[in-house]
């Protein structure tokens, strides 16, 4: 009985935490975690993907490196700034294919445009970014037919009154342009998994 009460309390806390926060906090926590990873194991060129999710204690961020470095950070908001600490790490032996040589700044900018697109869509429906529970970002080299190869994929998990959903957003920069163009997609291509 005590255990059930504790579990319910944890769920209520997690919901309360998530309800106060939005996807902007998920992105801030991811940014802080990536900065931390750059001071240790990874470089800007070796960050392959990340995922940022609300949990009971704040935000959990998983970062994946090109050499299958799996890092996990727990982030807590202090004075409207995120403090992230590495909690766990695992170095695997997977080989990733079709990974463009993009840096983490490019992925961050692409995912911000993706989230901005999602925010506009939600605003038209009467919602804001507080419905987002998790987002994941990765890069993939794929020619979309007009010379574009450097794609940034963003997966956004969210909850509407009708239930939980996820959407994929593909963003890329066209030749000679610095502006990201993004499209919604039902499926993501080359979505990596984390081993932590």
């Amino acid at each position, binding site marked *: 009985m005590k255990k059930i009460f504790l579990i319910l309390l944890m769920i209520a806390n997690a919901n309360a935490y998530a309800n106060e926060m939005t996807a902007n906090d998920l992105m801030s926590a991811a940014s802080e975690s990536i900065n931390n990873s750059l001071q240790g194991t990874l470089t800007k060129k070796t960050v392959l993907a990340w995922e940022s999710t609300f949990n009971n204690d704040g935000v959990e961020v998983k970062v994946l490196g090109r050499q299958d470095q799996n890092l996990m950070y727990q982030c807590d908001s202090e004075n409207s700034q995120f403090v992230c600490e590495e909690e766990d790490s695992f170095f695997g032996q997977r080989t990733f294919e079709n990974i463009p040589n993009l840096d983490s700044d490019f992925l961050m900018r692409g995912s911000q445009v993706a989230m901005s697109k999602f925010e506009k869509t939600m605003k038209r429906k009467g919602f804001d970014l507080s419905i987002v529970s998790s987002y994941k970002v990765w890069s993939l080299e794929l020619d979309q*037919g*007009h010379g574009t190869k450097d794609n940034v994929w963003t997966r956004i998990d969210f909850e509407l009154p009708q239930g939980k959903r996820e959407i994929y957003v593909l963003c890329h920069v066209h030749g000679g*342009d610095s502006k990201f163009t993004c*499209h*919604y*997609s039902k*499926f993501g291509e080359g979505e990596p998994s984390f081993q932590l």
Partner: protein
Amino acid sequence: MNNMLKIMMLFLSLSFISCGQLMGDKTGANDLPEIGLKTIGGLEATDVEADSYLLKGTASNGGYFSHNFKVKFKLPKEEELTFFFYTSSKLQGGSKFTFSRVENELVLEMEANGKSHKKTLENFSLEDDTVNLSIDLHNDHTDVHLLIWNAEGPFGDQEECSFEGGCIYNSEDFAFDYWLGVGRLNGVYWGFKGDKSLILSLEGPLEALSDA
């Protein structure tokens, strides 16, 4: 030894034929038949069936490409015209745009790969019965992306363009809820169905106006 040399020569000659040369624009496979041609709106056309016409011009790269089409036509009350893009030589499959009018408002019913979407095209007046449109179909993404502008502009292509007046139709508006998974269009031809005397001018396939 001679046979080996012949085989090598054959492989070498095949390697010089690029993919582009195997497309219809090089082989003539996608061309209109030589007989029974007529000119509609400044373009060569051939009958498919009664009041249905296949127009000259095929999409590049086997259809895996973005193109723009310009269509100008009269649309009196009670009339409707249907255009087919990235379709078959029998005008089957691909995307189908049916234009009709309600009073002075232009209504588009669009179909692609089994999905349909109907919308009154705002910011567009039919007071003089003339419709003049510039249409982009981007068939090189996971899902085809459609944009329509008044041919006299403006030519916005940002995601909010249909709300802000930069375009009059943008499939990104309903991509989130409805368009997901529609896929690409499978044909390379274009054409129309309706009274050909309503057509004023046709141009296409042209280079896409937008790369959005």
